[in-house]
C-alpha cells in the first residue's frame, strides 16, 4: 500500500481539528510537519494512531529544541506508519519559562523514555507521564544542559570541570 502524501495527511488533520493544527511546513515527503496546539496534542495523536487510513503505529523519534529568540521550547514528534509506509511530524511550542506539554506515553509506550530525555536535557514537563525523572544526567545535576543559556558549573562534587591547556605559553 503506497500510503498518503503529506498534503493528504495534513488535510485530514485540518478537516478534523481546524485551527488547532497549523499550516503544512516542509516541501519534501520526509520533512513535512505541522505545529499543533498543546491542548489538542493528545487528541491529534490518538486520531493519527487510530484512523485506518493514517495508522501511525510508530513514534520513531521525540526530541526537543530550544529557541531563545522566540522564547519557545519546541517538542518534535517524528511519526511513521509501518502499515502505510508514510511519515509525518508534529511540533508543539511551549513557553520557555515553564514548558508544559501533555504526555503521549499512553499512546506509544516507547515515548516514556524519550520524554524523560527531553525533560532531562531541556526541562520540559510532560503532564500525565508515569515516571518523569532524569534519564541521562545525575539526579542532583543543576539545570538542563541543552538549553542555550545553560552555564556549566565550575565543579561537580569537588571535581573541577575545566582543565588548563598544555598549549598555553
Amino acid at each position, binding site marked *: 500500500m503506497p500510503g498518503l502524501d503529506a498534503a493528504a495527511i495534513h488535510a485530514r488533520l485540518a478537516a478534523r481539528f481546524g485551527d488547532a493544527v497549523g499550516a503544512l511546513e516542509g516541501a519534501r515527503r520526509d520533512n513535512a510537519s505541522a505545529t499543533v496546539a498543546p491542548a489538542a496534542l493528545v487528541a491529534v495523536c490518538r486520531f493519527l494512531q487510530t484512523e485506518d487510513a493514517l495508522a501511525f503505529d510508530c513514534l520513531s523519534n521525540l526530541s526537543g529544541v530550544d529557541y531563545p529568540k522566540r522564547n519557545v521550547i519546541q517538542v518534535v514528534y517524528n511519526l511513521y506508519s509501518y502499515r502505510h509506509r508514510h511519515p509525518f511530524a508534529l511540533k508543539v511550542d511551549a513557553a520557555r519559562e515553564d514548558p508544559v506539554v501533555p504526555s503521549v506515553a499512553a499512546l506509544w509506550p516507547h515515548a516514556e523514555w524519550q520524554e524523560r530525555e527531553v525533560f532531562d536535557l531541556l526541562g520540559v514537563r510532560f503532564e500525565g507521564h508515569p515516571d518523569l525523572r532524569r534519564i541521562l544526567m545525575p539526579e542532583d545535576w543543576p539545570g538542563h544542559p541543552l538549553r542555550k543559556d*545553560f552555564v556549566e558549573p565550575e565543579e561537580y562534587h569537588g*571535581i573541577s*570541570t575545566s*582543565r588548563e591547556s598544555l598549549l598555553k605559553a
Partner: protein
Amino acid sequence: MSLINTAPEMALTTKVDDFLNWTRKSSIWYMMFGLACCAIEMMQTGGPRADLDRFGMAPRATPRVSDLIIVSGTLTLKMALRTKVLYDQMPDPKYVVSMGSCANCGGLFQLAYSVCDGVDKVIPVDVYVPGCPPRPEALTEGLMKLQEKISQERWLVRKDGAAATA
C-alpha cells in the same frame, strides 16, 4: 640445556624485596571495567593475540580482589563518582592505568558538560597511555611500564632508611 636434571637441589639467591616485587608484577589482576571504545581495545589486549595472560594478568569481576583498574574510555561526571567508589574498594597496593585521550584529559569531549576532564581529577594515576584509542600494543607497553614501576618499589625498607619492624 635444562637446569632441572643437572641441579635438582638448585637454589637461587635474591633480595626479598626483588622477590616480592617479581611475584607481584607477575600476577597483576585487573578489574573488569570498561567505559567506552577503549574498552574494546582492552578486551583485544586480553585476547589471544596480545595475550595479557602471559604477564599473569587476569580480569576480575570485583574490585575487592583487583590490583589494577584500567580506566578505558570517556569518564562522565556521573561515572567519575562511581569510579572513585570502585577505586576505594580495591585493597592496597593498587594501581591505576589511564587508557586513551578521554581518560587522560577528557579528550575529544573535554568541553562537553557531562564529561570529567581526566580521571586524575578523581583518583591518582600511575601510567597514562596515549591514543584514541590506543592499540593493544600501546596498552601492553603501558602495562609493562607499570611492571617496571612495581619492580622498583621497596616495601621492607622505610623511606628514612630504617628497616621495617612489622
